[in-house]
């Protein structure tokens, strides 16, 4: 997936006009990078295993109007292996979200806030035996894009995903560090 993102960035660079702006002031942006997630249900209900998902990624595409309002779509994946004796269970969480974003371009930085809606899909597997659940999710969050060089910038983002599962809320805070490319 990371290779795919690099290809996407390369393609974007090849078609961007020379007059394109910086990452923080661009009208359109693509971002991809590392995501660290924590599952609060695990933290609250199971003290014997870590609630952290140390492996993860995200990829997002956004557009911003001159007023600062716009929209963003995001896909992400988070993974962990449960450290217990025997064949270790593997947990995977994917999300497919989209929603409104407000992004204000300042000098070399662009803070933003957004609320995304969509589907979260989780799978637990032991060897070839797996169990999957898909539920509605929404994810308020925000961050800042920092210009690095040319159209390339750094995105630092935090969000708090809420998954509606069987009438209750499962909560998954997340921290993201990503490369962002503006055009």
């Amino acid at each position, binding site marked *: 997936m990371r290779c795919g993102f690099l290809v996407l960035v390369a393609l974007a660079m090849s078609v961007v006009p020379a007059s394109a702006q910086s990452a923080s002031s661009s009208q359109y942006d693509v971002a991809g990078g590392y995501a660290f997630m924590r*599952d609060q*249900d*695990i933290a609250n*209900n*199971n*003290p*014997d*295993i870590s609630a952290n998902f140390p492996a993860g990624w995200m990829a997002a595409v956004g557009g911003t109007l001159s007023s600062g309002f716009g929209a963003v779509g995001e896909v992400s994946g988070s993974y962990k292996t*449960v450290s*217990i*004796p*025997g*064949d270790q*269970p593997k*947990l995977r*969480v994917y999300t497919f979200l989209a929603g409104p974003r407000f992004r204000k371009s300042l000098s070399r930085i662009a803070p933003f806030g957004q609320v995304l809606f969509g589907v*979260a899909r*989780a*799978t*637990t597997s*032991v*060897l*070839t*035996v*797996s*169990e*999957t*659940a898909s*539920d509605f999710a929404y994810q308020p969050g925000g961050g800042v894009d920092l210009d690095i060089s040319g159209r390339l910038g750094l995105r630092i983002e935090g969000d708090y995903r809420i*998954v509606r*599962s*069987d*009438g*209750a809320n*499962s909560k*998954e805070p997340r921290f993201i560090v990503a490369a962002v490319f503006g055009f």
Partner: protein
Amino acid sequence: MRGRLVIASTVTAGLVFGGHQARVRSAAPIADQSIAVPPAAPIRPPRPESFIPGIPTVVSTPVVLRKAIAIPGAPLASTDLVWVDEAGKRMYFADRSNFAVDIIDAENDAYLGRVTGFVGPTGTRGGGPNGVAVTPDNKLWVGDGNSLVQVVDLNLNPPQIIRSIDTRGTNRADELAYDPTDRIIIIGNDRESPPYVTLISADSYAILGTVLFPEGTGLEQPIWNPRLQVFMVNVPTARGGEVALVDPKTMKVTSTYPVGSACGGTGLALGPFQRLLVACGTPFIVNAANGAIINNVTQVGSGDEVWYNSGDGQFYVTSADSTGATVLGVIDGQTGAWRQNVPAPGARNVAALAANNHIFTVVRAPAAGAADTTACAQFGIRGTGCVAVFGHQ
């Protein structure tokens, strides 16, 4: 093959049911069937512990004996399996001494009543009741003596036996499990030679077929594995314990996991992450996906029936510790590590309500004239046996 057996069993079941009414009345010395046991109100099952499936809720505080529930009628000299119906929040146990299945309010830890009409300790073709299980349509299925499977409608007030199904053996019908996908009951005819399991439609009550275990020296606790879509049966053999995987569609054994070489298999329970507790002298933790043995718990024996409580993430067994004292053994469901032995003198077989983490064991009455040193006596219930209730501190 299946069609032929269905036809035969339909005729047989009809004949047995016709004759069953007279036998019920003559075999039940306790007339407690008149006690009204209101149908359980539909209760929403507890929420799964996490959006991510299969992650257990773990409660690791110590387990202690909290209460004893007195059971009226004849002292509990002969009892067998225990079942907790999570949806109805009731506990059921096989009470041969009263020719009955007794019903406990598992939410409030109180005796509710009993369903009578079972064969009792000594039937011409084996005693009962033995195994118990409740299906989602609120039917209580019971392995009984005389090779019978009894179906109790818990929606009736009082609950009554509505079907008797003859599994055509020479001895008792024993422990059972339910496949909700195909709506099939599996029941062990453990004392036949060779032992076999009978598969019964939970809709038509027809016998769908049987599966023989030529090398089995008995048959013990079966369970349904919803992820693998197979029944798993603990099969004692001359070689030791084995877990057999039975496909309910093909009615064949698809795989066998050897567990322990010098032990007799008994209980079986499925925990989180496809961890099985296989009782074979001592508890073995086995990967249900491939049969790999993960751990062998040595601090406690394994007893007859074992249980996994999804409310606290623990396996429970009733057996002897290293001193020979009867205890309730607590084993971590996800790691397979032993956690605790709780003194439980007289306890036999166990089940738990996940909604409140109350753990129930039936404590048999001491022999007539013997001093009562059971868990019941700690609560002033002497000489009769009881249901002991455990919970977390």
